[in-house]
């Protein structure tokens, strides 16, 4: 009987294979640091044999998963305020700084050629500008032939820390824009994708689209990205250098669990849309927390290179030292 054989084989397979690896660390959340965490977990596994399984879904999922204690750590690029952390009984610390670029897909417009003023960005994402040759965009792009095609705005389908940081920047330009992980978009043509990956794929597949994604996603797909006007009125090309210049203005206070939104900083050479990404830990789980901090400590010490290669800005040594002290103070190192 063939089906008897199938059943026997199945039972044998499920019994014979030993249960291994119950001791891996599980994390879920932000997709903004997805590529760097992927590199870190892979390098950490190669170096130590220890397993960290991080699923880059979105910050909303990260906050929920850790609040409900479904994982060992959560990732979020929306920092939680100290009061919230107390209520949810969580610790929080930053891991890297990254930046959000405005990537586009317009025939004939190459990487870095498009200049977007603060007014233009506001007009595009609120729907005031409906076509690429709208005056507010064309004004700063005299040399470019922008098509009279409708703009498709690519946004996130999930609750996202990237969206939170991007709307934080939009709010600085236009205070009526609500800062949110998942705002209601008013532009005429909006397409949503799940996680940074989904948005990146949508921009790539849809002609005349623009969207906000983390820089490493642009780097890996080779999508063109715009120069963005910063606080002091300069158009800044997204480069590691301009991110570093921006990251310098971040201040970290361990007493507030490092709560900081660092977008739209000062400085003539700063790229304006930068953000830190954070790890959330459950306060009561001292033992797994120690393993999680050991992983990030390893990454801080040994793997700044992977972060830099992907276009993230590693935290400065002084901040890393603050974080280690924070771990020690809470007895999770």
């Amino acid at each position: 009987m063939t089906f008897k054989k199938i059943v026997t084989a199945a039972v044998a397979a499920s019994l014979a294979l030993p249960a291994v690896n119950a001791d891996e660390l599980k994390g879920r959340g932000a997709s903004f640091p997805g590529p760097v965490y992927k590199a870190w977990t892979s390098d950490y596994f190669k170096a130590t044999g220890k397993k960290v399984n991080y699923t880059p879904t979105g910050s909303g999922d990260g906050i929920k998963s850790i609040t409900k204690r479904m994982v060992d750590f959560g990732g979020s690029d929306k920092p939680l305020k100290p009061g919230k952390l107390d209520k949810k009984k969580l610790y929080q610390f930053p891991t890297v700084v990254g930046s959000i670029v405005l990537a586009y897909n317009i025939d004939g417009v190459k990487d870095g050629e498009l200049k977007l003023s603060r007014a233009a960005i506001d007009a595009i994402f609120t729907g005031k500008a409906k076509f690429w040759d709208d005056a507010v965009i064309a004004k700063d792009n005299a040399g470019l032939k922008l098509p009279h095609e409708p703009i498709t705005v690519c946004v996130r389908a999930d609750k996202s820390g990237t969206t939170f940081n991007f709307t934080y920047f939009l709010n600085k330009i236009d205070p009526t824009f609500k800062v949110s992980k998942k705002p209601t978009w008013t532009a005429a043509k909006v397409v949503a994708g799940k996680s940074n990956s989904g948005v990146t794929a949508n921009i790539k597949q849809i002609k005349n689209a623009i969207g906000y994604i983390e820089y490493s996603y642009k780097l890996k797909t080779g999508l063109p990205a715009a120069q963005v006007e910063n606080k002091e009125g300069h158009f800044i090309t997204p480069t590691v250098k301009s991110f570093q210049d921006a990251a310098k203005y971040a201040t970290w206070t361990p007493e507030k669990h490092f709560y900081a939104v660092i977008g739209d900083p000062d400085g003539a050479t700063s790229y304006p849309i930068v953000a830190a990404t954070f790890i959330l830990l459950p306060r009561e789980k001292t033992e797994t927390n120690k393993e999680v901090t050991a992983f990030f400590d390893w990454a801080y010490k040994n793997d700044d290179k992977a972060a830099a290669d992907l276009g993230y800005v590693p935290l400065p040594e002084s901040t890393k030292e603050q974080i280690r002290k924070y771990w020690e103070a809470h007895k999770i190192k």
Partner: protein
Amino acid sequence: MGGKLFRNFSFLSATLSFFILVGIFAVLFTYAQDAMHTFGLDFLFNEQWEPGEDDEGGIFGGYIPIVGTLLSTVIAMVIAVPIAMGIAIFLTEIASVKVAKPVSISIELLAAIPSIIYGMWGLFYFAPIVQKTVGGNGVGLLTAGIVLAIMIIPFMAAITRDSMNTTPPVLKESAYAMGATKFDVIKDVVMPYSKGGIIGSVILALGRALGETMAVAFLIGSVMHLPKHITDPTTSIPVLLANNFAEAEDLELSSMYYLALILFVVSFVVISLAKFYFFGRKQR
């Protein structure tokens, strides 16, 4: 003694599908209570989907995903029904056995391809073509509907073919003997004879289209906007669940269960209709 045990176990197994169905309904209904109490039936007609501050509370309505689910299904059906009927007619009445057999197998294989493959292929190869030819974003209601149609065509064609094959050859032969054309035979003999089965297959395919997740998730645009144009992106119940169920909390999570319940009940009704009304109580 062993006979009784055997019989009882088989009886228990048989009642299992009943319990699973009731279980699904009961669980979804229980978890949806919060949303049902807060929004009642207005939920069906409210376009808003706005989580409150810090993900607590909020206002939720299922109108957009419900409309999106219905519209993408309608588009899929409009495309799929004529093509599937054509294929079934080709297989039963036109092609020689030599041709019909490999074509039949191909169609059945097409039905076996996992839906996620359709979604991926649709996003990377089909959506750009739609944008070029029809306009719009490439990703949207129309693209989702077309790929959904491609997915259900083989399924529908296979069942329709089986129904048409039940037509007794004697009936067809006597019609031909009276000088009827192939189309006459199809229209006046085959169709009336297998009408119940054909309508049933259409409704079954409809049920499948309503609940399809992966093929649509890549293609519908996932955005909470009411479509104004056929190429506009929107969302559907399965896609909203796939994207946002895991991250939802509190009242939003309950609203997700509410949506799942609505989808479950609607597809239950649709499929039951196909089963009881059109296929009849086939005595097997």
